[in-house]
């Protein structure tokens, strides 16, 4: 295992030295990370990074199989167009987490920002997943086209809501699971509440189980059957938009 001190290292130099190290050593600790962008971009399978500090925007962009574990908060656009692999954040994340994500998993211990999962997509077995322990900002799953978002809503203080307005606006694929029931006005007209099935319960069990284990929480009190599930009203809402006769 190799340790890189990132203090005062420019993001390009930091990312090049990570590229250099992974040629021989697949496990790297990064310490003193302050805002360097694109950490983990494009990194392939079997690479493991432990990141201490506050990694910058677009962490894990286009990531292709690596595992990143962050001891601190993520900033904006974590997992931008990520292809596969796993991101674990022992903290919270900013806006546009999982932006256009194509595959892989992101687990966030705490809260996530605005526009999380914006334009996530899926294709055959490639199904991206975002699990967050706290609450999300507005526009959760905006233009979502595939994959799954699970929000646990743990430790909300009084008056706090698990999600903001405009949830699922423009959604045309994928699913959003929220712990509990939310008012209808918060959802875009393209998202609709659907019944939760046994398959959903198994899916939730699996990913919440991983969350529990990773962040060492006891979540036995969570009632999976009281989660609500939202999906797209219409899988192809714009099919007539450009070819009306």
């Amino acid at each position, binding site marked *: 295992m190799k340790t890189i001190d990132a203090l005062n290292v420019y*993001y390009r130099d930091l990312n090049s030295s990570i590229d250099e190290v992974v040629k021989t050593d697949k496990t790297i600790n990064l310490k003193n*990370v*302050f*805002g360097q*962008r694109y950490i983990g971009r494009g990194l392939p399978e079997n690479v493991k990074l432990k990141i201490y*500090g*506050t*990694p*910058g*925007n677009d962490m894990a962009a286009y990531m292709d199989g690596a595992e990143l574990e962050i001891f601190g*908060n993520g*900033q*904006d656009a974590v997992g931008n167009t990520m292809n596969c692999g796993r991101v674990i954040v022992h903290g*919270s994340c*900013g*806006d546009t987490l999982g932006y256009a994500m194509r595959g892989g998993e992101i687990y966030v211990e705490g*809260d996530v*920002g*605005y526009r999380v999962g914006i334009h996530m997509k899926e294709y055959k077995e490639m199904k991206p997943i975002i699990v967050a322990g706290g609450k999300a*900002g*507005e*526009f959760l799953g905006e233009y979502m086209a595939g994959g799954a978002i699970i929000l646990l809503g743990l430790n909300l203080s009084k008056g706090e809501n698990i999600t*903001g*307005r*405009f949830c699922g606006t423009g959604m045309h694929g994928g699913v959003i699971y929220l712990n509990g029931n939310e008012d209808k*006005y918060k959802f875009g007209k393209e998202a609709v509440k659907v019944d939760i099935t046994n398959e959903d319960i198994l899916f939730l069990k699996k990913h919440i189980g991983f969350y529990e284990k990773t962040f060492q929480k006891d979540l036995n009190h969570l009632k999976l059957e009281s989660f609500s599930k939202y999906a797209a009203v219409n899988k192809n809402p714009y099919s007539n938009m450009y070819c009306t006769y």
Partner: protein
Amino acid sequence: MLKEGELRIPSGCAISGIIDKESKRFCGEEIIKSIALMHDRSNGLGGGFAAYGIYPQYKDLYALHIFYDNLSVKMQTEDFISKYFEIESAGTIPTRSVPSVKNKPLIWRYFVHPKNYTVKGDIIDDDEFTSRYVIKINKEFKGVYIFSSGKNMGTFKGVGYPEDIGEFFMLDTYEAYMWTAHGRFPTNTPGWWGGAHPFTMLNWSVIHNGEISSYDANRRFVEMYGYKCTLQTDTEVITYLFDLLVRKHNIPIEKAIKVVAAPFWDDIERESKELQNELKSIRSVYASALINGPFSIILGYEKGMIALNDRIKLRSLVAAEKGNRTYVASEESAIRIICDSPDRVWSPKGGEPVIALLEGEQK
């Protein structure tokens, strides 16, 4: 050269602000370190700072910071200023040579107070008097730009990366209880010294990341009250909106925030009857002061610092607190680099202000 407004400027940017609510002053190194961390959010075409509490020895005088293109406009302007103001002290603003900071104008500073309080027979207070003459000079004197006009505060800005501009103006030698900083990313403009942020009027300073799509509606609105948008950039109009709402119309700052980042009509419908009435009147009376488009701004004034996002949070903003200090920045790392283990870190919601006032000040 085409100046701002003659070209369109889509921009990304970096913003950062620190306030010590007990008014303890600290030097400019911290804010430079914070804004420098976000270097790649700017492109070297604009950087600037606002510093509050830096001129205690002249705290009752207006500090005019002025860019001049040449000596002849400087002489004309000084003649004009001395007709209407007593100049207690005048001199160049000290600078250091920084290789990347080029084409600097003449940069002068004057500590002044108005000679009288009448304009065309109207008796007005000295704030109004001073602001009218600042607007007049910026509008009518070619090659002259007053870029700071407050009391016991000043802005320092220019073309360059913000950390270089901070070095150029020797901000490590100033002490302030509140600092804000901006790194600019105009992609389609020659960039000129006056166009950098902050934009100021009297004690107001605004730094801004984003674009104001309601600019023309807002501009027409403030120009009805005697302001003149001389730069045609969106940020300038925000400064005048707050000056108008809070200084001239005496609206409490929290309501002024509801004016510029008004709640949606359907959100208002879900509020209590009383609040509905209030919010509806705000939206009706000040419809043209609603700021639309993506923005995160930091506003400085004599009472403290306010950070605000547009209603649907199209720009990033993070806040933190530690002890007496409140921090805001575009990125969390820009706070953590100067603040070890903050007591609290949070992301404000869209339209939800971070209000950090000096002790004893009222909202």
